[in-house]
């Protein structure tokens, strides 16, 4: 057991297809997965994750552990951006607004990293609880509020942005596709339970890992292209942030949830991954609306080009290893 096993997740088809995409993009191949097709797959993945989580939850009662995790996760999503902001302002040359926008990404989560971690946990012989899907959904958004606070603090409150509408950012944040589909599918899974799930299992469960391969090929292409374009705009301070930030967040989460709340190895790994992963779908869209002055080439390169590949390849095995140290 231990590091070896954790590292062997690196040779799963999922990770290998990600690497293929990354490689193709860095070699400047013109290949691409059509965007509409990839977005369709993303919706499929979120429906499948939500359903499975909901069905799992329908079989277990609500425990105090669960409630503790929910509260901690919400607090974590609010708090991480403050820490990230401090690091970025101290150790990189990012402006205040760029640092705030980037920080917001690291309080939120990446659902694909979550899924890959769930697979790796199973592959390593552990299991993770169904309700963690709900935790992931909860962590999507609080970070956005912290980022807005950080960006506006100390400025004279500027006038309303022209053309903006009341509640626009809030709606974008609370009703974005991932939240709606994840929470909706979770509720549906809760309602229909194991019996209802049977009819849709051949679509949502059996082929799930295969679809993930196709999706990660596309993610590899996106990450590689983002990296090739954006890395020039980043100094060493911000590039290294993309690596040390997830590790610090994971370790902090691991200590609190492991020693403090007594989660088992599987659940602990997933919580660490949620802390460590950074958003590249929900938060960038919200930032373009709320903080148009922040530069997407900075926060997208860091989150999609640096942190996502790091987590997928090095991070997840590392977090499994740490979780084994703490709770194994």
């Amino acid at each position, binding site marked *: 057991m231990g590091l070896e096993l954790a590292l062997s997740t690196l040779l799963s088809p999922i990770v290998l297809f990600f690497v293929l995409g990354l490689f193709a993009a860095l070699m400047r191949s013109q290949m691409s997965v059509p965007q509409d097709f990839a977005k369709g797959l993303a919706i499929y993945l979120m429906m499948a994750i939500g359903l499975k989580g909901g069905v799992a939850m329908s079989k277990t009662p609500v425990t105090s552990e669960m409630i503790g995790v929910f509260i901690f996760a919400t607090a974590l999503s609010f708090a991480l951006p403050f820490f990230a902001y401090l690091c970025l302002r101290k150790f990189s040359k990012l402006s205040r607004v760029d640092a705030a926008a980037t920080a917001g990404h690291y309080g939120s989560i990446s659902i694909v990293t979550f899924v890959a971690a769930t697979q790796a946990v199973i592959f390593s012989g552990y299991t993770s609880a169904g309700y963690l899907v709900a935790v992931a959904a909860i962590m999507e958004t609080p970070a956005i509020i912290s980022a807005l606070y950080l960006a506006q603090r100390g400025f004279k409150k500027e006038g309303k942005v022209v053309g903006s509408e009341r509640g626009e950012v809030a709606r974008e944040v609370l009703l974005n596709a991932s939240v709606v589909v994840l929470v909706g599918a979770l509720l549906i899974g809760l309602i229909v339970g194991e019996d209802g799930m049977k009819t849709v299992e051949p679509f949502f469960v059996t082929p799930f890992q295969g679809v993930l391969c196709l999706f990660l090929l596309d993610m590899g292409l996106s990450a590689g292209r983002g990296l090739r374009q954006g890395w020039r705009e980043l100094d060493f301070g911000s590039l290294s942030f993309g690596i040390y930030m997830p590790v610090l967040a994971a370790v902090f989460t691991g200590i609190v949830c492991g020693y403090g709340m007594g989660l088992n190895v599987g659940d602990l790994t997933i919580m660490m991954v949620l802390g460590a992963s950074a958003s590249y779908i929900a938060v960038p869209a919200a930032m*373009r609306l709320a903080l148009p002055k922040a530069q*997407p080439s900075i926060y997208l390169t860091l989150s999609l080009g640096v942190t996502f590949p790091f987590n997928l390849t090095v991070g997840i095995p590392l977090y499994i290893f740490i979780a084994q140290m703490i709770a194994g």
Partner: protein
Amino acid sequence: MDMHPKKRLELIIETPAQKRAERVLTDVGVTGYTVVPAMAGYGGHSRWRRGMDISSSRDMVVILSIMDEEKLIKAIEVLGSLLGDHIGVVSVSDVSVVRKDIF
């Protein structure tokens, strides 16, 4: 068939600000506009392509609107300040239209 002189406003703007721009136009009272997706672009020394950014937050659109001069002046005024915050290009040209009543 007689033609009527109008102004054609062409606004190239990023997707997240599309709704704001649309609101500016309707607030000014234009009778219509049409949005066309851009698939790639270049400006300020950086290049983008649709599908490169998984969040679509850097995709651009082209908004066309045909209107009379009076509305154009108002629209330009407001769009100028909208563009202060967002990436975008505004240009105006002279066109003739067939049916004057609908503008």
